């Protein structure tokens, strides 16, 4: 493929990826009348902030965004803390049991949510964790952990064994080797896993719907759905405004760590 053609293909792909976000942004600044025109425009004719004021006045967007942030950050950190040593063990100590464990991790991803939600709800109820953010964090960690584990063990395998052997020759114990030698080399993989866990939790809707009962516990996805009604009807303006605001934390998080993530993904893809 020639270079100009590559750029055209890349541009088309960028437009394809960016279209929903740009459309959301455009809609969030439109009046109701402008949204209902037969030939919609990209740039609002009469830009308005009323959708944002409406969204904030009718729903607790700030509170739910803060709660989502607490949940998503907690899930990201706990997932990585739990998955990292397990991934190291799975990658370095290859046995039949480990292969079965990895297989089970992958198989666990195919169970439909509806199948497990009721038993899960009853367990949480017994633990007195229904309607609590720790309960939701526990469930999110449970569901992100298997894939995070699978991701990280690929990164661990990419780190040459010789480095560990060299560290052992120099007198480092296993824990010290893990913390001082392996962990820094896994930074890209850890970042990628953090991002995966954060975004999975930030966007998660169904478990939050079932577990969180009180309005003052609702996370952002639960608040966004309150702008929709029956039969595909929705209050489009406030919904678009709230969705734009909901996208910002993810974008910031991604922008801050995207360089490290890129190298992390490459490392995993080549050596995993």
């Amino acid at each position, binding site marked *: 493929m020639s270079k100009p053609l590559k750029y055209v293909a890349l541009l088309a792909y960028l437009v394809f990826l960016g279209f929903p976000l740009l459309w959301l942004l455009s809609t969030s600044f439109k009046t109701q*009348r402008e949204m*209902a025109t037969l030939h919609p425009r990209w740039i609002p004719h009469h830009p308005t902030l009323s959708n944002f004021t*409406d969204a904030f006045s*009718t729903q607790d967007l700030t509170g739910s965004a803060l709660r989502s942030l607490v949940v998503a950050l907690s899930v990201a950190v706990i997932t990585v803390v739990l998955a990292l040593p397990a991934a190291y063990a799975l990658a370095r100590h290859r046995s039949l049991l480990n292969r079965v464990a990895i297989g089970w991790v992958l198989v666990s991803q195919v169970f439909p949510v509806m199948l497990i939600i009721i038993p899960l709800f009853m367990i949480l109820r017994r633990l007195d964790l229904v309607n609590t953010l720790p309960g939701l964090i526990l469930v999110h960690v449970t569901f992100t952990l298997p894939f995070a584990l699978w991701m990280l063990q690929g990164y661990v395998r990419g780190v040459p064994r010789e480095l560990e052997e060299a560290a052992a020759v120099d007198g480092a114990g296993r824990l010290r080797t893990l913390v001082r030698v392996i962990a820094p080399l896994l930074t890209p993989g850890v970042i990628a896993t953090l991002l995966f866990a954060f975004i999975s939790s930030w966007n998660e809707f169904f478990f939050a719907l*079932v577990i969180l009962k009180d*309005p003052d516990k609702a996370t952002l996805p639960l608040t966004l759905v309150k702008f929709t*009604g029956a039969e595909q009807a929705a209050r489009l303006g406030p919904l678009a405004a709230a969705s734009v605001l909901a996208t910002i934390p993810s974008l910031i998080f991604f922008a801050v760590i995207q360089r490290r993530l890129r190298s992390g993904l490459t490392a995993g893809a080549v050596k995993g």
Partner: protein
Amino acid sequence: MRRRLRSVAAVAAAAVIGLAAGCSGGGSSDSGKPVKLKFLSLAWQKDSLAANKRLVAEWNKENPKIQVQYVQGSWDNVNDQLVTSFEGGDPPDVIHDDSSALAGFASQGYLTDLTKLLPAGLKSDIPQAAWGTATFAGQGGGDQGIYGVPFLQESQVILANKKLLDDAGVKVPTVDAPWTWDQFQQISKKLTSGKRFGVAWALKSPVNRVLNLSLNYGGTFFQTSGGKTTVKVGPQEREVLQRIHDQLYKDKSADPSALGMGTADPLPGFYAGKYAMLPASIYMRQQVIEQAPKNFEWVTIPPLKGQTTQQGEIAQTLSVAADSKHPKEAVKFISWFLNGQHQVELAKGDWLIPTSQTAAKDPSLNTSKDGWDIATASAKSLILAPYLKVDGYDEFKTKVATPALQSYFANKISIDQLAQKLTGDGDKVLARYQH
């Protein structure tokens, strides 16, 4: 069996606790603390949300011993949320839903039978036809009971571009002398010109709408004989189906590209004059008022007449969970929340018709402004939708009727093939639900 036992135990426990609460003097629990009720509401429009929250706040101020917590849910996923809550034994006390969901919940023992708990005033204020939408067999196909209080109902009307009607010399009909389907089809043809269509049928979800309208010709689509319910597609059931199909492909007065649209999707084309008329639910008036260009004139056309103007009715309801520890207090709240005066406020918030006969007389619901007089008068056309009482209707609708009707309206199958699919495949589905 275990669930049955547990549910029976839960109902019994709830009754005992409710009785105890009742004996303790109207509201507070044994410990003297106020009773706390959770109210899952599905109001989502700005005005409706405000009305619901205001009423709950007023109740809480006036009833310190029975405090209600307002919880906003969503129509899209309420039934998934409720099933989990019911099974987990932690459902909201007061549940907002629609009557089509109640049959399944009642037969599973998830809801309280309100028959003996409802006050006489509320019972007499709501017509029997509306109560019928919330009356179902109880757990395991047991006795009939009332499992929800119906309070908001919707009818199908036609929204029309007034200027296009005037230009074509078409007079707006009255409730007493509505258009017949024949007249509607003729007028649709008259209003079709160049790139403009007389009508846009948005039939992304066609089943309930077509079944409700088919009652204009007495089309019920279901028959019960010897305790067995089967699907029927006779001449009465074919009328509305055929007429819509004719508008699409014979008269060419309906835009085929609107078929895949959701209910609100044709509105931009309606405002731009691409469609002269839009068959729609009465709540669509609100969107027209909020979105239409300032100089856009529109009118509400009363329900069409076949042999009658009858349409199937589904009502929004308030129910009490069987696992609620305070069913009496919950019913007390519902009775207050749905009194005539409050139903006016709720109906205006959602742009729907109240079931309360007191509310229906309110002047604000009978003004010609925004088509309220026609919307309120259309309530007399509403009768119990026959499919509400059919076990297995949801599966029939999703797996059989929706794809079959979509194929028919897309002109991919004939009406005979449609009838074969509905009866053949439909009967197989329903047979699995027969007791």
